[in-house]
């Protein structure tokens, strides 16, 4: 009790800020937006989940987020591994380089992709030179995934690095010394030990990919609508707040589900390794 008192006292200010500035407004907008009540939101959510034109939007959102997460893991984990095993004086510089995309304005970065992917852009010109005709990658799902991977790769690298850097490199050496191939040492020692970081990275990238707005809006366009761009239209065009809350609710559930799944996986991983 004597220890708990100060602990609680230290927690309270932060909790108060979270509750007042985060939980309350989020709950209020999700469940009782302006001109709406929980019943209307529930009805709109039902309509969203049964509309044959909107279900593909949900499916596309999940597909894009899963693909983005998988590609980020494939590309980001090896980079994080190499940085964690690089000489200390290089690690800092390499990390700074890896997070550089985070420091660019999203709009600038996205317009860069438009220049590369457009019909008259780099990809278009290469396609024309190869006799493939007018290659139009812009305004496709591929373009959205490319843009999101670039945007969120740093998150994956940072999260995986934080786990990998804490690992004692001698564990890997010991495995190799006991006869494990490099691949087996990686599969059975390095990766399981770095799993918590990789899972945090996956959760962050997935949540980011589901909620990202500028990138899908500019690279995907109106045909490749995602939940985030649908949410934007409902808030900004139809000013239909209950319908917008329904979209936000689906997005929140998606992100929470994946976050719970990754927590579960992390536990399984830590008990089996």
């Amino acid at each position, binding site marked *: *009790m004597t220890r*708990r*008192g*100060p602990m*609680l*006292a230290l927690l*309270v*200010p932060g909790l*108060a*800020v979270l509750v*007042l500035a985060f939980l309350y407004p989020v709950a209020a907008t999700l469940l009782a937006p*302006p*001109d709406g009540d929980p019943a209307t939101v529930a009805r709109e959510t039902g309509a969203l989940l049964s509309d044959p*034109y909107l279900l593909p939007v949900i499916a596309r959102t999940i597909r894009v987020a899963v693909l983005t997460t998988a590609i980020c893991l494939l590309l980001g984990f090896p980079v994080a591994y190499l940085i964690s095993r690089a000489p200390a004086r290089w690690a800092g510089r390499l990390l700074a380089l890896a997070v550089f995309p985070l420091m660019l304005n999203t709009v600038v970065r996205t*317009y860069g992709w*438009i*220049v590369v992917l*457009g*019909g*008259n*852009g780099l990809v278009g010109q290469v396609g024309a030179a190869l006799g493939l005709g007018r290659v*139009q990658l*812009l*305004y496709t799902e591929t373009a959205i995934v490319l843009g999101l991977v670039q945007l969120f790769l740093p998150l994956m690298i940072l999260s995986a690095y934080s786990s990998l850097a804490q690992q004692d490199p001698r564990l890997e050496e010991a495995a190799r010394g006991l006869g494990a191939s490099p691949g087996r040492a990686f599969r059975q020692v390095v990766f399981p030990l770095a799993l918590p970081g990789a899972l945090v990275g996956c959760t962050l990238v997935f949540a980011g990919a589901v909620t990202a707005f500028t990138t899908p*809006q*500019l690279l995907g*366009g*109106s*045909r490749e*609508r995602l939940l985030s761009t649908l949410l*934007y*239209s*409902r*808030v*900004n*065009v*139809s*000013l*239909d*707040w209950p*319908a917008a809350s329904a979209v936000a609710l689906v997005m929140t559930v998606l992100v929470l589900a994946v976050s719970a799944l990754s927590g579960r996986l992390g536990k399984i991983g830590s008990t089996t390794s």
Partner: protein
Amino acid sequence: MRRATAALAGALTAAMALTSCAATRENDTDTLVVSTFAFATEEFMEVVGEPFEERTGIEVVLDTGNNAGRLTKLRINKDAPDTDVVLISDYYAEIGREMDLFARIDPADVPNMADIQPWAVDPDGYGPAYTFQLLGLMYRTDMVDTPPDSWDALWDPEHPGGFALPDISVSAGPMFVLATGEAYGSGPGDAETGFRRLAEIGPDALQFYTGSTELTSLLERGEIAMAPGLDNFAMNSVEAGQPIGFAVPEEGRVMTANTAQIVAGAPNREGAEQFIDFLLEPEVQAEVAEVIYDKPVHPDAAVTPLMTEVSGDAAVDPAGAGYHQGDLRLIAEQRSAWLDRYIEEVAR
């Protein structure tokens, strides 16, 4: 535990003190809160805000954002409004009116309303239009042989150079539905024909643009040869000597206006009236035209040469050139249905 409770109570008190600090303004005649577009705000202060402050001694505070965001804020603060004047596009003004956010204006309190172009005065007595934008075809002068003189150019099966269409989320979107209905259907309210005709060309459009910069960027990089757009989008490009032109179609001439509304229950109602009157003064309108490219509605305010270069006579007298606002009530009522229809039928 007791200490923790005390800390919680302290935090709550502090939070409540903070929220009540954002004090409600009541009968505040020294300041005027103007909600406006987050575009050229410095220039706006220079040619409107500061001269108004000098004349009246009322301090002008800008609250900026897009149409929908600002309308949402007004709706949330409906019971204790902290804003006096709202500069907002006609379509969002109509939605705001439905929500009872705006007050009617007595023409006697805003004398300049008697002199502006008649269409700019609201028939129901709400705030007047202070500028307007024309829907037409933006095109690449070097990719299109003759300037398109009709919306037909978009239905040309060849689509030389490709084209883009406005997304339903930008004001040009619903305007284009109405313009198409008017040009090919029974008249200005024939959205049915509008949607049917748009569904024919939707699949061929390269992109449904969601902002003016996106559209000008597509045109400037030559990704498309033409797109329906507002004349204001073309002004920068034309001024910079880019090969971009703006064509006024023969039929289906729809325009949109920006209006100045007084918030219902505004803390500084009199200041709001003065501000709108000031905004309609010929000298101020001319200055705004020069600096922010907003076409004037006061006949005595000079239209800039750039405006007539882009839009021709319609820049001076839109109503005389056959331009008119869309059926705002229809667009506002149908906004959710149109959004869904656009996704399902046009932007495929």
